[in-house]
């Protein structure tokens, strides 16, 4: 048996410990609520000599991501963390990182985008960078945040992948809560995650030019290659999930399911509200005898289309709960993806799109039960709709 260390600790600190165990070489970050506890703890670890890394306290998030581009191109294992407005300020550079194939790991403490300015949780920040080409993974509790942070380095740095990853945790509702963690020892991590071996690095012994001008003759091919790299990363993600599970007993899937057997209705969530949703499922199953279950989308990009199609087979109603608005659009961002993914399949479920929990608004057990009932009613009546906002005062 491997040695484990159990500890109740704030999720942000747990993530920092994972970054320390990953023995990162460089961290560049700018403080933004609610990501601050992560970078505070990391700078402490560096100051105390517990983590042998360069901590670069930059003057903006734009520079944070730019510095990360430099450290990663130099061949250093690179980490950063941000949130909301900070992510928005990075936006320009976010597109360039996957094009340069730099394996940066970033924790994204999900927070609403202004305005009005809000420090509270929703997923509008991540949705604004949906098409930047990053792998995007969701953690719903502290243990998942710890485990997925470690696995992300292995996924990102795999020579078949070489893409950046954002590990998403809900701001405050996850980042600032104290949760039980089962840590891994340094030896275990070292074995699972050896030092980063860059395929290419900036080194005068073997000069390369990175970030060339993409003339029309090659630009399209460059984008195709990048797209395929992202799509194909799913196989490596699953491989790393399995390896991690085999070693440490905690298995992860690109879509997690909860009590979906024989379900006629499924709820679909991302992030920490999933735990509330599970409670709602328990009540509906155990007290009301309803055939409902839950899907938790762990992998947002690359979108797990095959797995989704498989998991909704035979389901009558799928209620997708989004935590962001696509203003004036045809559905919540996640619901829109799911409708697209299922449109060409036979016997697809009715997809209800609900938007809930914007800017820190609570989504309660009752809300989930109401949404399940509403979705079933809409399905029965064949209601044509784009999306409905749940929990807003009308």
């Amino acid at each position, binding site marked *: 048996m491997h040695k484990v260390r159990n500890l109740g600790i704030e999720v942000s600190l747990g993530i920092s410990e994972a970054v320390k165990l990953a023995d990162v070489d460089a961290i560049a970050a700018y403080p933004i609520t609610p990501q601050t506890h992560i970078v505070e703890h990391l700078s402490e670890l560096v100051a105390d000599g517990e983590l042998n890394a360069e901590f670069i306290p930059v003057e903006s998030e734009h520079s944070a991501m730019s510095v990360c581009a430099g450290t990663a191109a130099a061949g250093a294992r690179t980490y950063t963390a941000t949130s909301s407005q900070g992510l928005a300020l990075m936006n320009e550079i976010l597109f360039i990182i996957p*094009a*340069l*194939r730099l394996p940066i790991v970033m924790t994204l403490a999900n927070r609403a985008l202004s305005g009005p300015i809000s420090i509270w949780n929703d997923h509008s920040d991540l949705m604004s960078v949906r098409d930047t080409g990053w792998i995007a993974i969701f953690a719903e509790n502290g243990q998942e945040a710890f485990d997925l942070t470690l696995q992300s380095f292995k996924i990102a740095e795999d020579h078949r992948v*070489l893409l950046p990853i954002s590990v998403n945790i809900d701001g405050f509702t996850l980042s600032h809560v104290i949760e039980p963690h089962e840590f891994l020892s340094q030896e275990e991590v070292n074995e699972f995650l050896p030092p980063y071996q860059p*395929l*290419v690095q900036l080194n005068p012994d*073997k*000069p*390369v*030019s*990175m970030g*060339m001008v*993409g003339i029309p*003759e*090659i630009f*399209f*091919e*460059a984008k*195709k*290659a990048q797209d*395929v790299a992202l799509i194909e990363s799913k196989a490596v993600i699953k491989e790393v999930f399995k390896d991690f599970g085999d070693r440490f007993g905690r298995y992860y899937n690109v879509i997690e399911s909860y009590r979906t057997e024989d379900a006629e209705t499924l709820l679909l969530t991302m992030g920490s509200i999933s735990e509330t949703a599970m409670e709602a499922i328990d009540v509906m199953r155990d007290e009301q005898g309803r055939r409902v279950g839950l899907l938790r989308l762990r992998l947002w990009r690359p979108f797990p289309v095959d797995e989704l199609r498989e998991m909704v087979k035979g389901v009558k109603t799928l209620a997708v709960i989004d935590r962001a608005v696509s203003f004036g659009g045809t559905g919540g961002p996640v619901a829109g993806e799911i409708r697209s993914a299922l449109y060409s399949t036979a016997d697809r479920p009715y997809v209800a799109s609900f938007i809930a929990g914007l800017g820190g608004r609570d989504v309660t057990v009752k809300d989930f039960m109401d949404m399940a009932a509403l979705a079933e009613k809409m399905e029965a009546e064949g209601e044509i709709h784009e999306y409905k906002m749940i929990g807003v005062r009308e």
Partner: protein
Amino acid sequence: MAKNFNEMTWKEYSLAFMVTRPGCSAEYRTGDWRSQKPVVDKSKCIKCGIWELRSRWGSVKR
């Protein structure tokens, strides 16, 4: 190179479209767009080395 770079498929390019052959721009023919062409009068050369420093393209050598 077997194929011209603008005939290759997306699978055939280097990772991230990096250029791994340093200074390969030397293969690219410049000058065909210019309207004036410098002519060197070698009989006047005193081997001072100034023009070697003055060329943007490194086209003057000792």
